[in-house]
Each structure stands twice: as structure tokens, then as C-alpha cells.
């Protein structure tokens, strides 16, 4: 595996920049309660229908586990059924192979313009750049993806790719791209901006030669791609062009339509707090002879790009992920930074696990550590992925491979050495208490502390007195 275009090694410096970006902070501050509030409300309503979140997520995790523990078999079943319905099934080891396969299909069919429905795999492959280089115009059609494509940026959230963008920024992008003067806008103008994008993208939908989409799931029993969207762009790109290419990870397969129905009880609720997304499309094969619309050719590209190596490993649970975004929507770190600081395709807790695994542990040293261990992510994950435990496992690997900074290693060893010598420990902590108290100088707090510069950069260090508990306790016992 290689780092590819990952920038995850620059996490610290990017984070420093992101926490100081007022536009971004305002956008995140606005989105946070909406994301968590909507989810909470929809989950709270489950018992009205005799359903329980914990029971449902056991079922969902079970479905994903069933597929993963016999993944080879389910993939072959999917492939056979998809081919039986006239689809072509191709396989890609990595991002470069995705690009090659897509460009090859496009060139064979004389494709000049591609409309795309959101696909994270295409981000992994940097497909848009590759298409453009081959003279094929890619157009992102999810409104959020369209906005960031205009801005020349990567998505900052897996289901709300433009969550970091303000209304003013969108207005500026639209004015420039759509060739009109820029105006003062308020939130009352958001429908008008949406309409403007609709008009522009409609023409692209009608004129594209090929549609590219991801798939939320592959359904093995019928060889079907399941596509879940709210805007309807997923339907457009899979209905109007003659050619449809589905790019998806090999882990996305589920056995049956019943399994899909179960997963759909949690996916929209976890993602946006909807009981169901506006459009759920099940796409199987190609159009029949008599049909006048729909693709005449459907191509599945099943991608590895690091996934197969997780099968049967300590990180297999990560492959259960259904890309709902709930973990980042409940992550205090994500909401302090937005997604770009994470440096690769996937942000938030799931990204902190996936990025090191897919791009190399040594290329993303900060990500597994940039977590408070609050477990807000694992408490909402609809497929019960123990994200904090997986991050912890990656920390252990870093330690075993000697990838932790020497200062930390030495410090911990010294601390442990001391902690296993209680008498010495008592003596030194007594000294430490006096030292802290001296630094506080009667104010009850330390404002600048050389041993914890990060801490005192933003906080005081409260100091309660000059004697440790054990010192005072011993004195009390003597009295």
C-alpha cells in the first residue's frame, strides 16, 4: 500500500490552521446540533414502531459480519447474478486501476462528458483528475460535491461534502462559474441558489454520455447495486446516460434484499435523521430490448484498495462500515477541525482508522491519537464498530514499531519506573506539589507551565495546595 495523495502526516499543522478559521468554525458550529439532533430524534421514535436501536444495530452488524466472514463467496454470488442480468463486472486493485478501467470504458464508447453521483471510491482514486487529463469532462452532481468541485477542493464530510462552505463562498463560486455578477445573499436565498444549480446540472444530466455512481450496497442474491440519495442525482445518472459505471468497494456486498431492508432502517436515521431517504434505487442489469430509457451497458468496478487485507485481520470490523457519517457527526475532534485536516478521503473517527490502514500506518501517525477516547462515535455507530478500540490497536502498532516520539517513550518509562517504587514516588510527588504551589504563588493557578506548554497555552492549571493527599493523610493518621 502507498500513501497516494494522503496529506495525513500534516495533521498537526492543518489542525492549527483549522481551529483558527472563523468561517469554518461558524459553519461547523451551525451544523453540529443539527446533525446530532436530527439523528437523536429519529432514533427516539423507533420504539413507537416497536423497534429498538440496540436490537437493530445488532442485526445490522450481524448482516455485515455474515457477508464479511464469507466475503469471497458472496462476491462470487454477486458477480454471477450481475453478469446473468447483463452487467459487466470488473475488478480494480487500487485507485490507478479504477482510473484506467473507467477511462478505458469511456474511450471505447466515445464518452466526452460524465455525470457523477457521489462516490467516495472515486475520491480514493482521484478519478476526476484522471478523467480530465484524458479529455473527459467529469461533473459532480450532488449539490455539495458540485460546490467543492467548483472550489477545487476535496469533500470534508462523507455525506455533507460542503459542510465547511459558507453561503457567501457558495455565492461567489456560483457567480464566477455561472457567469453572473455576485450578490449579497442571506439564508432566504438558499432555495434560489439551489435552483440555479439545478438548472445548470440539468443540462449536464441531459447531455452526459456516461453516469458514474457509487453503491451503498451490492445485493448478492440479485446482482443489484443499491443507491440511496435525497437529491435525485443518483437516479439521473443511472437513468439518462446510455452507460452506467458503478464503482464500489468489495466490502459493500450484503446477501439479500431482506438484509438491505434491515440496513435501511438504520442508514438514513444514522446519517440525516430521516426515516428513509427520498430515493432508494435498486439497479440491476441493463435496459431490456423494448425499453426506451436506462443504460444499455452497466459496468461494476469492484475495488480492493486495501480492503482485502483487512478481511480476517484485527480490523475486519471496520469493513462493516456503511458510510453513514454518524461517527463524525458526534465527534468533538471532527467538529473542531472539519474534515480536511484529516488529510485523506475519510475524516472523523472512521477516517482515523481507515486512513492509516489504507495509506500506511507510518503515514498517518497522528490520526489514531487525535481522539479524546470519548466513545461518542462507537455509541452511535449503526453497525457497532468499536472505533476507539480500533484506534487504540493502531496506537499499539505504532508503539511496537517504534513509531512514537522518543520523548513520550522515555517519559512513560520514567513514570512507570517511579510508579513501581512507592516510597520514591511519594517523596517525588511531595516535591512536585510544593513546586506547583510555588509556581502558583498563592494565586491557586499556574498560567505558564514549561512541562505542559500546550495545556497552559489555552488554560490555567488549577493548584489546590502544597501537600499531596498521602502526605496529609499520613499526618492525620498520626494525630
Amino acid at each position, binding site marked *: 500500500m502507498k500513501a497516494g495523495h494522503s496529506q495525513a502526516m500534516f495533521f498537526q499543522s492543518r489542525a492549527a490552521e483549522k481551529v483558527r478559521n472563523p468561517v469554518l468554525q461558524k459553519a461547523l458550529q451551525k451544523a453540529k446540533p443539527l446533525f446530532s439532533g436530527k439523528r437523536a430524534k429519529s432514533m427516539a421514535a423507533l420504539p413507537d414502531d416497536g423497534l429498538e436501536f440496540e436490537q437493530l444495530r445488532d442485526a445490522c452488524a450481524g448482516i455485515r459480519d*455474515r457477508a464479511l466472514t*464469507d466475503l*469471497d463467496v458472496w462476491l*462470487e454470488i454477486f458477480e454471477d447474478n450481475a453478469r446473468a442480468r447483463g452487467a459487466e463486472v470488473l475488478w480494480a486493485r487500487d485507485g490507478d486501476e479504477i482510473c484506467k478501467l473507467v477511462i478505458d470504458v469511456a474511450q471505447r464508447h466515445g464518452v466526452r462528458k460524465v455525470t457523477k453521483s457521489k462516490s467516495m471510491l472515486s475520491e480514493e482514486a482521484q478519478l476526476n483528475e484522471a478523467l480530465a487529463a484524458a479529455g473527459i469532462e467529469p461533473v459532480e452532481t450532488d449539490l455539495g460535491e458540485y*460546490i467543492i468541485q467548483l472550489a477545487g477542493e476535496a469533500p470534508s464530510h462523507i455525506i455533507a461534502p460542503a459542510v465547511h462552505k459558507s453561503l457567501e463562498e457558495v455565492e461567489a463560486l456560483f457567480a464566477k462559474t455561472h457567469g453572473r455578477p455576485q450578490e449579497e445573499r442571506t439564508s432566504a436565498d438558499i432555495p434560489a441558489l439551489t435552483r440555479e444549480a439545478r438548472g445548470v446540472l440539468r443540462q449536464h444530466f441531459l447531455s452526459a454520455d456516461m453516469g458514474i455512481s457509487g453503491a451503498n450496497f451490492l445485493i448478492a442474491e440479485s446482482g443489484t447495486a443499491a443507491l440511496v440519495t435525497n437529491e*435525485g442525482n443518483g437516479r*439521473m445518472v443511472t*437513468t439518462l446516460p446510455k452507460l452506467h459505471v458503478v464503482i464500489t468497494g468489495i466490502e459493500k456486498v450484503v446477501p439479500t434484499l431482506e438484509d438491505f431492508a434491515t440496513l435501511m432502517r438504520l442508514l438514513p436515521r444514522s446519517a440525516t435523521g430521516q426515516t428513509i431517504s427520498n430515493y432508494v434505487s435498486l439497479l440491476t442489469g441493463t435496459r431490456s430490448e423494448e425499453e426506451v430509457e436506462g443504460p444499455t451497458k452497466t459496468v461494476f468496478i469492484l475495488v480492493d484498495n486495501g480492503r482485502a487485507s483487512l478481511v480476517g485481520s484485527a480490523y475486519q470490523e471496520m469493513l462493516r462500515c456503511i458510510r453513514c457519517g454518524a461517527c463524525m457527526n458526534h465527534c468533538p475532534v471532527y467538529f473542531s477541525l472539519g474534515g480536511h485536516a484529516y488529510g485523506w478521503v475519510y475524516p472523523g473517527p472512521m477516517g482515523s482508522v481507515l486512513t492509516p490502514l489504507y495509506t500506511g500506518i507510518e503515514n498517518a501517525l497522528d490520526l489514531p491519537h487525535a481522539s479524546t477516547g470519548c466513545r461518542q462515535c462507537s455509541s452511535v455507530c449503526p453497525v457497532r464498530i468499536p472505533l476507539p478500540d480500533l484506534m487504540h490497536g493502531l496506537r499499539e502498532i505504532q508503539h511496537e514499531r517504534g513509531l512514537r516520539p522518543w520523548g513520550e517513550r522515555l517519559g512513560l518509562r520514567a513514570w512507570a519506573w517511579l510508579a513501581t517504587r512507592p516510597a520514591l514516588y511519594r517523596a517525588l510527588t511531595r516535591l512536585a506539589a510544593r513546586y506547583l504551589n510555588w509556581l502558583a504563588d498563592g494565586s491557586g493557578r499556574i498560567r505558564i507551565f514549561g512541562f505542559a506548554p500546550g495545556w497552559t497555552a489555552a488554560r490555567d492549571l488549577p493548584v489546590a495546595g502544597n501537600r499531596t493527599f498521602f502526605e496529609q493523610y499520613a499526618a492525620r493518621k498520626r494525630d
Partner: protein
Amino acid sequence: MSAREEILARVRAGVGKPDAAGRRALAETWMRARSPGPQPVLAGDLLARFCEKAVSLASSVERLADYEQVPAHVAAWLAAQELPLSAVTTLDVAGLDWAAAGLACRSGPAVDADATGISGCFCAVAETGTLMLLSGTATPASVSLLPETHIALVPASRIVGTMEEAFALLRSERGQLPRAVNFISGPSRTGDIEQTIVLGAHGPCRVHLIVIGETA
């Protein structure tokens, strides 16, 4: 080695179990058993539930006793919305007497200029207030997608409880999935600009459901 062989070999190594053929047979048996997950208990009757959910998803709902009343209602509804009295329809509903109600209807796939699309549905799901449409020669998917207004005729007798029941109905009546099954739940929407929900992103801005008759 081809990419396919290499990837599958890696997956097999990870799965770490012998006897792929035996496991495949087990998988096929398991699929045929159709074990559903936790099922909802839907209080009240399916018709009321469907209507209530559909309205909560920003669709409008009208109930009519029979198909004869549909064209006049559609004409009146379009007029009330100040929409043109014309539409593109799917073939399965083309036989209604639209012209008698003053509507200019054409049947077949929709084009960009169509303001209103009228379709039937394969069935509807009460749990979520969702329509299930199948693509086909008589039922082009574009009718429910390109026009800004989508009107769907829903026979009350075709309202089932859950998506699982809809799949069972599909299997028993059609045997296999058509090219596209579209579950539609209200107008298209987006929240991509500052998390503000706007109806009518790429698909219809308005969805009007006409529920016909009573449940059996």
C-alpha cells in the same frame, strides 16, 4: 494474475476457510431461507399510516373512491397550484380519460420540458410513506424524475407494511427485479448549502399522491 484472481485470493486468505463450494451451497440455502431482521409493529391501519407518513415527508395526499374521479381531481389540483393543464404519463395510467377533464396528456418517457409527470406505482410502503415504482416499457422512470411535479396514483389495496413485504410482492408477481426499482419518499431535497433543507434539488419539487379506494 488478473486483478480479479488476485483480489479474490487475498479475500480467501483473509476469510481463512476451506471448501468454497460447500460454503457457497450454505450461502445459497441461507438466501432462500429469507430471514428478515427486526420487524416494526405498525399501529393502526396501513392506509392511515401511509398517508400520515407521506404527508410528514412533504407530499400532499388526496383520497378518492375510484379511478373515474382521478382526471377531474388532477385537473382541479393542477389549476389550484397554478400549473399548466398538461402532463406526461406512464402507460399504465394512460387509459384514464384525461382529455375529458381538460388535460393534455401524452404517454411515454418524460423530457426536460414536461412540467408534470403522472405515474402509477407497483405498491406503496406504509412504514415510511414510500412509493415503489418499477422501471419498464410501460413505466419509464423519467416520468417520476424529470418533471417538477410528480403525481402518483396509489391503489389502497397495494399498500403493504414494510419494504420486506414489498419485496415479497415483487418476487411473487414478477419473479425478478426490473432494471430499476425506485422507492420514492416525497419531493427531492438537499441540505448542502448551510444545512438548510430545500425541496426540489434535481427531481420533483412537488409530489402529490392520490390514494384510490379502500384497503381490501
